[in-house]
């Protein structure tokens, strides 16, 4: 597989399913989700609260909290299945090859430990041979990269502002030079100005460090400014994937369409806010057929009976220069893998 390494995505999630049992049944949080992330690309995973995107993010590093369990699928990092690895090997990946940034920076940092101590611990875990001075120097370097003054190392988490804490947390994740950053709602707890700074930061990191980013969020605005491609998730299933341009300007799935048009636009002359009727489905007993059909304005008979498959829309011409057009094994020019716009909807053929 080495010749096509440049096309092979750095992270490939195949048919992942995650469930967790509760007193009244089993919640099927994620069902047969598939995603690809290429080297150096930013993929935005969007969806409403409770759609399973955070759970999916956690599963990459096998951090799903019991009783939640990954029930099926593969997660391939550089071709190796993370789900098949031994616990030790996964632990070595964490924080080093793949790293995560979480939503709430105050509670994500141990309040009892000074910042420098937390850095030293992380570095020491992955490189026990590193000396204290060297480790501190690395910490300072990465903090400066992220715009945090080195003097903050001597402080406690609660002494920092929210935005700074988020940067510190990011720094802790980046100090070991990972390939992939999975950011789960990184700015939800921050105000918009800080968020703007964070977005710039993410873009800069992607450029300078060739960092691949999986950005999990419900914030479409942020996604628009960061992501190359977007994946839309609903009720535990991936329902649409495509380049950011395509998804924003030509959304295929009615849900995606609804999502995008729900965001208030100051340039439009809107009198009423657009909303989507209904509420997210019960994940213990999801609706039969397409999970969105109870809320879909275009629901057809087949939508109620059968689940559509995830595929390029019927009759769509493959985008020029994409891997599909050129054939799966030919070394197409550095086009990101699967730049094809795909959707799971009967309106577009449903993969039939």
């Amino acid at each position, binding site marked *: 597989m080495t010749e096509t390494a440049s096309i092979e995505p750095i992270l490939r999630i195949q048919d992942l399913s995650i469930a967790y049992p509760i007193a009244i049944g089993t919640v099927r949080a994620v069902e047969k989700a598939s995603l690809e992330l290429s080297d150096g690309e930013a993929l935005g995973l969007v969806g409403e609260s409770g759609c399973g995107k955070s759970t999916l993010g956690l599963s990459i590093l096998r951090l799903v909290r019991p009783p939640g369990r990954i029930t099926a699928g593969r997660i391939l990092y550089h071709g190796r299945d993370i789900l098949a690895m031994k616990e030790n090997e996964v632990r070595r*990946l964490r924080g080093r090859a793949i790293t995560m940034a979480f939503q709430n920076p105050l*509670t994500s*940092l141990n309040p009892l430990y000074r910042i420098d101590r937390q850095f030293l611990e992380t570095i020491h*875990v992955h490189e026990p041979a590193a000396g204290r001075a060297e480790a501190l120097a690395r910490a300072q370097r990465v903090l400066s990269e992220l715009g945090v003054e080195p003097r903050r190392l001597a402080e406690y988490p609660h002494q920092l502002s929210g935005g700074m804490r988020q940067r510190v947390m990011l720094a802790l994740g980046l100090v070991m030079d990972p390939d992939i950053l999975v950011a789960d709602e990184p700015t939800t707890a921050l105000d918009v100005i800080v968020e703007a700074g964070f977005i710039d930061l993410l873009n800069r990191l992607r450029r300078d460090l060739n960092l691949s980013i999986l950005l999990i969020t419900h914030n479409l605005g942020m996604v628009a400014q960061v992501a190359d491609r977007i994946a839309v998730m609903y009720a535990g299933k991936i329902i649409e994937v495509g380049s950011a341009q395509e998804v924003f300007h030509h959304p295929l799935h009615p849900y995606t369409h609804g999502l995008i048009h729900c965001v208030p636009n100051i340039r439009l002359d809107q009198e009423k806010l657009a909303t989507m009727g209904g509420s997210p489905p019960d994940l213990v007993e999801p609706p039969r057929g397409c999970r969105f059909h109870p809320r879909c304005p275009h629901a057809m008979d087949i939508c109620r009976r059968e689940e559509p498959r995830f595929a390029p829309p019927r009759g769509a011409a493959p985008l020029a220069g994409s891997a599909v057009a050129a054939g799966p094994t030919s070394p197409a020019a550095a086009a990101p893998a699967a730049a094809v716009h795909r959707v799971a909807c009967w309106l577009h053929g449903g993969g039939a």
Partner: protein
Amino acid sequence: MKNLLRYALTRILLTIPMLWILLTLVFVVLRIMPGDPVSAMLGGHAPERVIEQKKEELGLNRPILAQYLDYLGDLARLDLGNSMIYNQKVSQPLLEKLPATLELTMVGMAFTMLIGIPLGAYAASRRRTGRDFGIRLFGNVAYCIPVFWMGLMLQLVFGIWLDLLPIAGRTGPRVFVKDFQNTGFYLLDTLLAGQWASFADVALHLLLPSLTLGIVLSGIFIRLTRANMLDTLKADYVLAARARGIPERRVVYGHALKNAFIPVLTMLGLQFAALLAGAILTETTFSWPGMGRLLLERIYLRDYPTIQGVIVVFAFFVSLVSLAVDLIYALIDPRVRY
């Protein structure tokens, strides 16, 4: 550090009213008894005149408010009064016996923590498995076992049946206390005097009684540590630490436990009161020459000033420990003082 000092001062000032209430309570309780303490003391048939004279002597004829103020005044000067039975100041036997009780209580507390906290943390990390339930069962049962019965059973098994450990007193027959008597804390004294054989003897005598206290009271710590650990293990920073590749054992004992420990520490302060109570019962069981036995002895003799003195000292220590715990809390958790 300045913050810490300010917090400490506030906390100390707060202790005073509580201590005052306790002392008042002691005063009230010790004067509610039906009948007349003096005639009881002199045997029911002493002539009226003698009774009155004795009462005058002891100041029991003065109005209750005056007695109360005297009481507070004496305490402020650290004067616990004189024994009604023996010709001695109350403080004398008290100071003699205090180290014995303190030593027992402290070693007992150490055992409680050594048993309770690790078991609680382990149970939390192995949640809902057989080991978790086993540990919890142990904790519950231990708590329901009266401390004096635990003492008796330990005596039975280790002292009588197995004949391994001594079951009474602080020292054995071949050890002479005056050879090392210093602070009254025999573990310390024997070490200071360099008498290793005596140290071993003292330690062995201390083992069963403090273990009794330790096991019975560990139940609370197991439960509390487990509960706090479960909460802490769900915390975001624990997830974040795991996400950085920190090994599970370090996450549990290094990150989670330190945070979970704080409420456990507070419980320690509260449990100290229970430890003191348990110490009294343990002293009875093991013929331990401490304040508990002194209290019971003087109750039997109706030596009210001494009874009062002992209880006052208990109240004082309880307040002191509570204060100390709060200060240590501030030391560990930086959020409290900044």
